């Protein structure tokens, strides 16, 4: 774009730019500004109140010497992997099955999507009741005459992550279903006619033709789910509060605890910076290929 073209471009879109200005200011100061500020704090020795000194990577060294942080990261990785996998598979299957011209389709859709309308707090509390050995399924089964029945996920350090994954999958797979279903409805019906004429089995059509066509939907749903899992906090607090011990601690909870309860701003901001970088490392390639890649929008 040469200078003249640039000027013309500006002049023609001046009003639009002015209209966008407040929003741009908000983005720069409220989002980028606070983000940079917290990165800056992570290099200081701040405890209760922000300080201006510079201590290099001391907070980061300390962070990775803290076993609870390392446990939190491991837990997050395990939860994220199974959560994304199960949500995606279950959500896609639900969408495909609902798309089979079933009766009471809207009823099924509502049933699968209503958890997403609930807050994580409520989801966590309800599943905490269900899985509570004294009140929930275990107690019910024992009352029914199975005295050896054991379902102690929330109180067993080895299994507590299953409980978290179960609750989050229940909460999130409806979203995948809705997005994929919307995508399936947008598939040209001629593709189905063509494949039927060719006699291709429908599972093959889904796998090799339809799902690749739904790539934007899939990426959108995975991105939304990933974000919700990285900032996962309330569901853990409601279900286990990180327990038993530190078996279900997650990074966001580590950050919150250090920020507020433990008056340790330096460590908390170091942790959130690590989390931010992790998210960027995962998201940037995905978003890049989505928006600027060969099949992307910008090409």
């Amino acid at each position, binding site marked *: 774009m040469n200078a003249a073209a640039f000027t013309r471009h500006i002049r023609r879109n001046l009003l639009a730019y002015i209209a966008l200005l407040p929003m741009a200011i908000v983005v720069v100061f409220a989002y980028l500004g606070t983000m940079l500020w917290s990165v800056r704090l992570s290099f200081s020795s701040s405890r209760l109140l922000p300080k201006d000194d510079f201590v290099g990577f001391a907070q980061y060294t300390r962070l990775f010497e803290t076993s609870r942080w390392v446990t939190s990261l491991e837990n997050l990785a395990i939860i994220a992997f199974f959560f994304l996998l199960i949500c995606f598979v279950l959500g896609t299957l*639900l969408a495909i099955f609902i798309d*089979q011209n*079933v009766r009471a389709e809207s009823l099924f859709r509502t*049933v699968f999507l*209503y958890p997403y309308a609930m807050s994580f707090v409520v989801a966590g509390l309800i599943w905490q009741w*269900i899985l509570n050995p*004294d009140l929930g399924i275990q107690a019910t089964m024992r009352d029914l005459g199975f005295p050896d029945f054991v379902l102690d996920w929330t109180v067993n350090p080895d299994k507590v992550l299953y409980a978290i994954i179960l609750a989050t999958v229940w909460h999130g797979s409806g979203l995948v279903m809705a997005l994929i279903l919307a995508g399936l409805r947008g598939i040209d*019906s001629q593709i189905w006619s063509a494949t039927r004429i060719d006699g291709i089995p*429908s599972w093959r059509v889904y796998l090799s033709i339809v799902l690749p066509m739904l790539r934007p939907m899939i990426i959108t749903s995975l991105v939304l789910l990933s974000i919700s899992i990285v900032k996962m906090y309330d569901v853990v607090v409601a279900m286990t509060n990180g327990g038993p011990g530190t078996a279900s601690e997650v990074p966001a909870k580590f950050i919150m605890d250090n920020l*507020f309860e433990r008056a340790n701003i330096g460590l908390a901001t170091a942790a959130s910076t690590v989390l931010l970088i992790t998210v960027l490392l995962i998201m940037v390639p995905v978003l890049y290929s989505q928006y600027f890649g060969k099949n992307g929008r910008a090409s």
Partner: protein
Amino acid sequence: MTQSSVSKRPVSSQDIWGRFGVYGFLFFVALFFLLPLYVMLVTSFKSMDRNPPRADLRVAAAFFARRLGQGLDERLYRA
């Protein structure tokens, strides 16, 4: 959805067993999704004198207190 668009939809499993599988799958997954709703409704209709709901309410109360900063109980101790 109108009838015409339905006719264009793929009907992958023409035989009765296929339909059975589709409905069976959806039905059982729906049960899983509805379980918490059932629990919530049952809990809300239980008499308040019984122990479990009371404990649940405390869980909720403790949770919201914690959201506000620090656990009710914890605060007492750390006071």
